[in-house]
């Protein structure tokens, strides 16, 4: 059997270069919250595994009538780590400092009005997981969808 394997490999490499294999995509579409009922108690979205991603571009749709009263971005650096709050203040969204992983937003997402859309651009190169914790004093419904991209090919 070893000789058969040897002959098989030899037939491959004799006079023929083995070239690298490329394949797969480098992006994913994401659905993070689908008509999520948000109440006055902090309501987390589903968790996004960003261990293979570099960037997130997300649309936040407030399809209910109530405004948000809190919009917090939480991250984990390791799947066993605790959730850490990165951004929860209005200024984090309206005026992110130079070097912030938050690369842009439509405005202050902590008070996103009912019936309006927002968006955010987030670098996630340092993190393993991301989730959003939402609050609405009046109650509302939130959908978060978008895409994640990597600098390399993603596993299938």
């Amino acid at each position, binding site marked *: 059997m070893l000789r058969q394997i040897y002959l098989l490999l030899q037939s491959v490499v004799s006079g023929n270069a083995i070239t690298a294999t490329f394949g797969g995509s*480098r992006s994913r579409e994401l659905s993070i919250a689908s008509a999520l009922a948000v109440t006055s108690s902090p309501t987390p979205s589903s968790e996004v595994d960003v261990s293979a991603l570099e960037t*997130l571009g997300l649309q936040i749709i407030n399809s209910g009538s109530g405004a948000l009263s809190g919009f917090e971005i939480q991250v984990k650096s390791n799947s066993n780590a605790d959730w850490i709050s990165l951004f929860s203040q209005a200024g984090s969204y309206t005026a992110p400092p130079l070097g912030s992983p938050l690369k*842009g937003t439509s405005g202050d997402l902590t008070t996103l009005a009912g019936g309006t859309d927002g968006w955010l651009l987030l670098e996630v190169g340092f993190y393993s997981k991301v989730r959003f914790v939402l609050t609405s004093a009046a109650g509302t419904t939130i959908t978060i*969808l978008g895409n994640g991209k990597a600098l390399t090919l993603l596993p299938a």
Partner: protein
Amino acid sequence: MLKQIYNKLNGTVQNGQIGVIPAGVSFSQVTLANNFEIGTELAYTDALDVLNFDWAGLQIANTGEQALASFAVQVKFAAAGDWITLFDQAGDFNSPPYGSAVKGASHDLTALAAGVNGWLNLDVTYYAQIRLAVTCVNSFNTALNVFAGAKAKVNFEEVP
């Protein structure tokens, strides 16, 4: 185990070569508008899919006889998402702020004159699709040609 390795290799080898995809692609070019007639009603070009791309370069040729009255770049974050207007002011194009996705423009595209060629470079890292929304100054129609190229930082091949 040896038998399994042999079978695996034998299944892979075809005509003395390992069956591979030799390279992926990192560039796509699309015509978003071809002699696209525009009046005072808002009109939209075709969409450019940038989900797998990082940069987009657009040529916008006003081939008609009227200037544009408005010019906006719209994006989607996901195919199922809504179109969102990101850039529609003169300053967005002729003096984009630091960190803007507008990485360069020939000039103020919101008033692109008749017979003039413009161009626009965009960082599309965070977006899934882009398109242009345009109007003409009056009811006399003008026409646009929009040629786009999208480029990725790495080669890739879509999995069927």
